[in-house]
Each structure stands twice: as C-alpha cells, then as structure tokens.
C-alpha cells in the first residue's frame, strides 16, 4: 500500500471519529431543541389563551379607562379654561398690584413731603409758641393796665351819670317853668302838674318840627306820628299842631306824649284821604 494511502486511511479514521462525535452532539442538541421548542409551543398557546382572556378583561378595562380618560380630558379642558381665567385674573391682579405699588410709592413720597412739612411746621410752632408766650405776658400786662383803666372809666362814668341826672332834673325844672310861663301868657287851663287838660293851640313863638316816623296803633286804629321836637322846645301834651307838606295842609297833630327831644301825637286828617309821611313839616300854628 502506498504511503499516501496509509496517510489517507489515518486521516479518514480520525475524521470519522471526529464526525461521529460531532454528529452525536448535533443529534442530542437537535433533540433537546425540538423538545424545548414543543414546550415553548405549548407554553405559547397557554400564553395566547391567557392573553385572550386577559385581553377581554383589558377591553372592559380599556373602555373604562377610555371613559375615564374622556372624563379627565373634559376635566382637563375645564381646568385649562379655569387656568386661563386664573391667568387673566392673575394678570389683572398683577396690574392692580403694580398700580397699588405705584400708589404706595406716591403715598410714600407724599408722606416724606408731609414729614418734611410737619418738621417745618413743628419748627414754626416752636417759634410761634415762644412768640405767643411773650405775647401772653405782654397781654397780661396790658390786661392789668386795662383793668386799672376800666376801673377809672367806671368811676368817671358813674360821676358822669350823676351829673347827667342832675342836668336832666334841672332841664325838667326849666321846662316846667317855661310851660308855666307859656300857660300864663296864653291863658291855657293847666292841671296841678302844669299840663293842659284839653286840646289847645300854642300862641307863643312859632315851633317848627319834622315828622320822623308814622305808625298805626292796631288796637284803636289811630295813626301816630313822632316829631323831632320835645319838651325842650315847649311842646306839651294836648297841644294841637298843624302838619303840612310845602304849602299843602295835611291835618292836625294832637300831642299825646312828650320827651325832652321828641314828641308823639295822634294824627287827625279831618276825614280826608291823605297820608302823613316822614319829613312832613309840623307847625305850632298856621302862619
């Protein structure tokens, strides 16, 4: 046998042994894989069955979840609209806050100005207080002096009143003397006090007066006039005088009350419709 044949025989034997080992291992592995494949097939079928049952459960669960999702979407939309409203409100609040901050700054500035003003006014008040204190002291001094002067004035006033009373009594005595003298000259009947008891016309020197005011007595309806001549001018009660305006005769005036410087008398227009006015002339007798 040729050497190559021998070598090939050896190689073929070795390769046969190797191939036998590989083939056995391949066959066993294939058998295991096949068995495992069958197990996996049955397991997969069981899983598919479980999946189907689970899917049916999942379907209801999915429907429930979809319904829940729809509800949540609606709720989300409502929340989003609410968020938008809140954002709008927030924007308004922010603007209001800015406005309030600006107002606060403005108030702060005004407060500073007012503080400065108050400080200035406090200084002014201090100055005024000092001035008022000095003025009060001066016023107290003036008041004391005024009181002293008032006391002196009161003394002088009382003295003057006494003198006036004395003067008035002297004038009344003088008037009585004049009336007595006039009565003696005119022949008018007088009472015990020297007054005429009936209406008379004065025959003495002409007395001229003016009507100051005219009033109507509501109780008797008589019209009374006040003239600017009194007992100092020899006017007496019951004296009849004549009222005129220019050259026109208005009526009679009978004196009912006399004083030193004025008299009051009742107007008699003799039935004519004429009015006596302020400024009309009153004469003791017709010229």
């Amino acid at each position, binding site marked *: 046998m040729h050497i190559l*044949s021998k070598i090939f025989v050896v190689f073929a034997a070795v390769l046969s042994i190797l191939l036998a080992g590989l083939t056995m291992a391949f066959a066993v592995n294939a058998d295991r894989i096949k068995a495992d494949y069958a197990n996996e097939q049955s397991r997969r079928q069981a899983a598919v069955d479980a999946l189907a049952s689970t899917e049916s459960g999942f379907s209801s669960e999915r429907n429930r979840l979809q319904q829940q999702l729809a509800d949540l979407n609606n709720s989300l939309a409502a929340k989003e609209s609410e968020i938008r409203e809140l954002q709008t409100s927030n924007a308004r609040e922010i603007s209001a806050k800015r406005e309030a901050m600006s107002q606060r700054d403005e108030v702060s500035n005004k407060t500073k100005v007012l503080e400065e003003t108050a400080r200035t006014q406090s200084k002014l008040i201090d100055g005024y207080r000092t001035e008022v204190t000095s003025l009060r002291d001066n016023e107290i001094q003036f008041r004391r002096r005024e009181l002293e002067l008032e006391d002196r004035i009161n003394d002088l006033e009382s003295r003057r009143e006494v003198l006036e009373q004395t003067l008035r009594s002297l004038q009344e005595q003088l008037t009585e003397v004049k009336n007595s003298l006039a009565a003696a000259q005119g022949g008018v009947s007088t009472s015990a006090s020297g007054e005429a008891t009936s209406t008379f016309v004065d025959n003495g020197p002409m007395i001229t007066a003016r009507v100051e005011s005219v009033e109507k007595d509501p109780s008797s309806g008589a019209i009374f006039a006040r003239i600017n001549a009194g007992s100092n001018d020899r006017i007496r009660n019951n004296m009849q005088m004549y009222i005129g305006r220019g050259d026109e005769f208005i009526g009679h005036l009978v004196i009912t009350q006399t004083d030193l410087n004025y008299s009051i008398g009742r107007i008699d227009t003799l039935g004519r419709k004429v009015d006596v006015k302020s400024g009309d002339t009153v004469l003791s007798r017709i010229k």
Partner: protein
Amino acid sequence: MNQFGMQMPGGKARRGSSPDVFTALLFVATVSLLAACVMVYIHGSKIGPNGSAFKIHEEGQSITFK
C-alpha cells in the same frame, strides 16, 4: 533507465508501491469526511451551548445560544 520506472534486468528491486486507484478513493473519502466535519462543526456550533459544537444542552435547563 530506472529513472523511468523500467525494470531492468539485474537491477535492484523496488521496495514501495506506487499510488493506485484506492489511494485516489481514500483521498476523495478523506476530503469528503473533512468537508462533512467542517459543515457539522459549523452548524453544531450554532445550536450547541455557548457556541460549542461538542457540548450538549443540559436537560431541564433553558436552552441558550451564543
């Protein structure tokens, strides 16, 4: 002339034989076995545990490939 394989009279006899048809058949068989080994090894390494063509999967355990 013995360079040409001719047996010359009186020449020394040869001790080995020359390749023949069996040698060729053995060569072909060897090559076929080698090819079969290579193919079985390649495919066995694909299904063998951890890529080994000579190992076998343990029974009862999960089958893992490389």
